[in-house]
C-alpha cells in the first residue's frame, strides 16, 4: 500500500518530504470548508445543550460520530428516557449514503485497503469524500492526502461543537441569521462541482424529486437512500454502452 522507496537514505521515514507535501496539499484543499462548517458545528453544539446534553456529551458525540446530518437527526429524537435504539438505527439510516460513497471511492483508492484503511474510512464525510472524488480524477489518492483533508476537518468539527456547547444559549439563535442554511449552501456548491451536463441534470431531478416524495410519505431518514438510489438508477438506466465515453 505505502510506496516505500528503497533509496539508500530512506530509513522508512514517515515524514518524508513527499508525504508531508501531500498532507499539506490536503490541508489547503480542506481549508475553505473549515470556515464553512465551523458555524454548523457551533449550531450543533448550541442546539445540543438546549436539548439537555452537557458540553462534554455534545463534544463526545461529534468526536465519536463525526457525521453532522445524523447528529442533527439524533438531537431531533433526543428525549427522556433516551430512545437510544431509535437514535442508533436512524444514525445508520442517515449514514447509509456513506456505504454508497465507500462503494464509489473504494475501487479508486488503493491506498485505503487493509486495517489502516478501516480507520481512514471512519473519517469519511460528505465533504471530504467529494474532495477525494475530485482528487482521483487527476491523481491517485494517497494516504497522506487523505489525512491532510480529514485531520483538520475532524478537529474543526469537534472544536466548533465544544465552543457552541460552551457558549450554549448565550449565542443568539443561529437560524435567525440564516446560518442554518450554510449546510445546504455547502452541499449545493459540492453538487454543482459534479455538474457534467444534461445527464447530471436528470440524475439531480430524479434524486431530488424521489427524496422529497419519500420524505413526505415515509417517516425517518429513508428519503436519503431513496433519492440516492433513484438518481443512481436513472444514470444506470440511461447508460448507453455504444455512446462515446464521457469525460469524467
Amino acid at each position: 500500500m505505502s510506496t516505500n522507496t528503497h533509496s539508500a537514505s530512506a530509513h522508512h521515514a514517515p515524514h518524508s518530504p513527499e508525504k508531508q507535501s501531500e498532507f499539506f496539499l490536503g490541508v489547503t484543499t480542506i481549508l475553505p470548508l473549515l470556515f464553512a462548517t465551523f458555524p454548523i458545528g457551533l449550531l450543533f453544539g448550541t442546539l445540543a445543550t438546549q436539548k439537555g446534553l452537557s458540553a462534554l456529551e455534545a463534544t463526545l458525540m461529534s468526536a465519536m460520530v463525526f457525521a453532522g446530518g445524523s447528529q442533527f437527526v439524533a438531537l431531533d429524537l433526543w428525549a427522556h428516557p433516551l430512545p437510544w435504539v431509535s437514535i442508533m438505527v436512524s444514525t445508520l439510516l442517515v449514514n447509509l449514503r456513506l456505504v454508497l460513497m465507500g462503494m464509489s471511492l473504494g475501487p479508486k483508492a488503493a491506498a485505503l485497503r487493509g486495517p489502516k484503511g478501516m480507520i481512514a474510512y471512519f473519517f469519511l464525510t460528505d465533504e471530504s469524500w467529494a474532495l477525494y472524488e475530485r482528487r482521483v480524477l487527476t491523481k491517485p489518492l494517497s494516504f497522506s492526502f487523505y489525512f491532510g483533508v480529514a485531520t483538520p476537518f475532524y478537529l474543526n468539527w469537534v472544536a466548533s461543537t465544544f465552543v457552541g456547547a460552551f457558549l450554549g444559549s448565550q449565542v443568539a439563535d443561529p437560524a435567525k441569521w440564516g446560518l442554518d442554511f450554510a449546510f445546504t449552501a455547502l452541499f449545493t456548491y459540492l453538487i454543482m462541482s459534479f455538474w457534467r451536463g444534461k445527464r447530471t441534470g436528470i440524475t439531480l431531478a430524479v434524486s431530488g424529486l424521489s427524496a422529497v416524495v419519500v420524505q413526505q410519505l415515509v417517516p425517518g431518514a429513508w428519503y436519503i437512500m431513496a433519492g440516492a438510489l433513484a438518481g443512481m438508477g436513472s444514470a444506470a438506466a440511461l447508460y448507453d454502452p455504444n455512446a462515446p465515453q464521457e469525460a469524467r
Partner: protein
Amino acid sequence: MSPELFSLSPIVLLCLFGMFLSTFFARNLGQFIIRFVRISGRTEAALQAAPPAILMAVIAPVAFATGPAETAATALTALVSTRLPLLVSIILGVIAVFCFRLAFAML
C-alpha cells in the same frame, strides 16, 4: 466551571457508542461490498452518478419542501457556485436565505 458542563450519563454514553458503531459500519461497508461486485459499464455509470445523487437527496427536503425562501436561496447558490469560489458561494447563500425569509415573511 459548572459541574453540568462536563457531566456524562451512562445512557448517553451507551447511545453515543451505538451511534459510533452505526457510522463506523456504514463508512466501511461500501469498500467491502464493492470488492465482490464486478463493475460493468452500467454499474460504473451508476457509481459515477453517486456523488450528485447522494448530495441532492440529503438537501432535497430543505431545498424543495421547506419554503419559498429556502428554494430560492438554493437556486441562487447553485447559480453563483458555477463561477464563484466555495466560501463566497456559501456566504451569498446564507445572506440570500436571510433576505428571502424576511421578504417572504412580509408578503
